[in-house]
């Protein structure tokens, strides 16, 4: 009996040491299609690294960001690897020392591994968007910019030609010519929802008109003539030739309208293009033409830049293991693996130059050259025509952004719903923003 007990306890001890030898890495992910693919392919990584066990926490974007911010801010230690976008990297996470710089880990890599990973193959603007003061803090799993998508068939029928880089004035002419609500076709789809995380299309239009959020002394410019001109243009284009009910239209609603053939022009995320090419959800496959994002006097800030990156939480005890995973998930080998398993069109977009040199990908993704060009030209560090104290094309990269942008989005949506005047909305937002910036100490009187 004693012998059996002894044997049992010895077995238990052995089993537990074996379990301890395995490192568990916890990842927090957004539930977008690219991340879901990454989760599905993770067993391939674990097969190669039997000492690492991956745990996934997959959540919708806004919920995920809250969960990560709250956990990291209070030092909860729940996550080792987190999804971070350009805004988080530039805004406050790096400043708050929540992410580990990746440079020392790259320096410690073997020569062969470093060559195989080929950091220089990652799109330069994306790399910069995920770096602060020359140090890299995340690696991109997928990247995007914004551009113009339009219905080639409708343009042809109406005898219209979309230029390579249209102006907003031209977009207005095209949209209004094609607008035909009686037959369920709208000239353009634009967002008007009161959720501030969906403001990017307006922000890029505003910057392309030469307007800006702040002057060099951080004084809000929301009531300036340039800003008002851009705002008025957006609202009147939407009212005259856009979809009805825009005050509840965000990305998904807009995508549905376009994919169901209800809209002639859509200026939005480059990532939307691959969904419009998917026959299982889209009625407009091969009917979409592409052009760069419209401008109106300023190319700076006329298209946004975004990367969904993987970063390592600074307090994680498994830096090396986490690094091994994020370099695998963003490697050339991984890009090829996705193409092999899920089809070439699902290749992670907007991350590597080599993707855009791959003839197989270019054949199935007619939008690819435009995506690449849009990402390469998007200058996140100089988002406006004039010099401004802030960076960021789809946000303003300061922690206070949410505080005043949420208020702006509410007023913006009210104007689009027709329940508030343009002047009143701008004046309200100007006041709120001034108060926020004074409280935060940006404006010194």
């Amino acid at each position, binding site marked *: 009996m004693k012998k059996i007990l002894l044997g049992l306890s010895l077995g238990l001890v052995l089993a537990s040491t074996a379990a301890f030898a395995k490192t568990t890495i916890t990842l927090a992910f957004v539930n977008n299609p690219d991340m879901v693919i990454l989760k599905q392919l993770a067993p391939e990584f674990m097969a190669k690294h039997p000492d690492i066990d991956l745990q996934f926490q997959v959540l919708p974007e*806004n919920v995920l960001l*809250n969960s990560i*911010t*709250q956990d990291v*801010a*209070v030092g909860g230690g729940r996550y080792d690897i987190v999804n971070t976008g350009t805004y988080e990297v530039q805004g*406050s996470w790096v400043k*708050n020392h929540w992410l580990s710089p990746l440079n020392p880990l790259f320096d410690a890599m073997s020569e062969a591994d470093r060559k195989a990973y080929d950091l220089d193959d990652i799109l330069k603007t994306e790399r910069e968007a995920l770096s602060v003061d020359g140090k890299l803090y995340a690696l991109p799993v997928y990247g995007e910019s914004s551009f113009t998508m339009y219905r080639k068939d409708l343009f042809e029928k109406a005898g219209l030609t979309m230029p390579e880089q249209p102006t907003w004035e031209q977009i207005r002419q095209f949209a209004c010519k094609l607008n035909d609500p009686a037959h*369920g076709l709208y000239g353009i789809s634009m967002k*008007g*929802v*009161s*959720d*501030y995380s969906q403001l990017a299309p307006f922000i890029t239009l505003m910057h392309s008109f030469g307007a800006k959020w702040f002057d060099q002394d951080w004084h809000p410019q929301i009531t300036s003539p340039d800003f008002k001109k851009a705002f008025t243009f957006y609202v009147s284009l939407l009212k005259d030739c856009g*979809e*009805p*009910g*825009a*005050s*509840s239209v965000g990305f998904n609603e807009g995508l549905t*309208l376009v994919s169901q053939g*209800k809209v002639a022009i859509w200026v939005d995320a480059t990532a939307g293009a691959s969904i419009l090419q998917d026959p299982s959800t889209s009625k407009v496959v091969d009917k979409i033409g592409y052009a760069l994002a419209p401008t109106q006097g300023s190319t700076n800030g006329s298209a946004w830049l975004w990367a969904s990156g993987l970063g390592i939480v600074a307090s994680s005890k498994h830096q090396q293991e986490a690094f091994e995973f994020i370099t695998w998930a963003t490697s050339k080998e991984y890009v090829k693996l996705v193409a092999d398993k899920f089809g070439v069109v699902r290749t992670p977009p907007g991350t590597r130059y080599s993707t855009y040199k791959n003839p197989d990908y270019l054949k199935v993704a007619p939008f690819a050259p435009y995506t690449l060009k849009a990402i390469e030209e998007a200058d996140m560090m100089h988002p406006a025509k004039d010099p401004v104290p802030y960076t960021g094309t789809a946000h303003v990269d300061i*922690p206070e952004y*949410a*505080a005043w942008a*949420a208020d702006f*989005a*509410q*007023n913006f*949506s*009210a*104007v*689009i*719903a*027709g*329940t*508030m005047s343009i002047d009143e*909305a701008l004046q309200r937002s100007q006041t709120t923003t001034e108060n926020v910036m004074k409280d935060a100490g940006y404006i010194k009187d």
Partner: protein
Amino acid sequence: MTAVADSMPSGTKRRAVPARWMTWPAVTYLVLMTQAPFVVTLYLSMHSWNLLYPMRGVRFVGLANFRSLVTDGIFQLAILNTATFTLISVAATSLFGLVLALVLDKMTLGRGLAYTLILAPFLVMKTVTPIIWKNMIFHPIYGLLNWFIGLFGLAPLDLIGQHPATAILVVVTWQWMPFMMLVLLAGLQSLPQSIKEAAALDGANAFALFRHITLPHLKPFFAVGMLLETILLLPMFGPIYVMTYGGPAYTTQNLTFDVFQLLTQQYEVGKAAAAGVVTAAITIALTMLLLRYLRPTLERR
């Protein structure tokens, strides 16, 4: 413990004593689980803490969070919206619930089927309902509502954009009407047949019967239904989050949504806690008031 037990005169109490202390673990657990979070919320409500500024730390600010909330126009609007949403939806569900209950009570054929169908909206998940209404009924392009008003040659309507509060109230009323119906139907069916017959013999017509017999009988049932609905509808969140996101221009922002915005978008833990405390205070005060007002009707039975 033995000293206490010895001082007890009778044998029955002697047995009751250990039973009492044996409930302590459960009571302690209950107090910890229900009151500890509220105490923490109270503590946080008197501190300034923004998660995005770890360097600033957690600072004691006294009642400053409450002061800034009280003077905040958006917070005042949120209180007003909460009151409007709760009052109107409770009133509307009571009215429609009563009509439905009366119809069902009188029905003889197909009552089981009608009952199941009317109850169905209440059983659908509370966030799924607004998604369906938003995309399938209110949608300005695909929606059934616009197809319907189009039959009369009317111009398409963007209800969520133009009248967001109405849209939310319609959905909430639709959702909660069956609940009220259920409570009132139970009341109607507990009304003794003999009373109705006696009234009829005395020559009461249908209206008089309803006015003087049925309605007074239903009073406590109304009281219970309204009390529960007030408590459950005050912190409404799903329809606002899904349909309007509190907008446009805060016209549909209620207290719960305000707390949500402060905490998860601005990371103002202190202010959000203060708003939460105010919400809890309002809910408790309102419940006490309702209970006091309703107690006589409830205890009469």
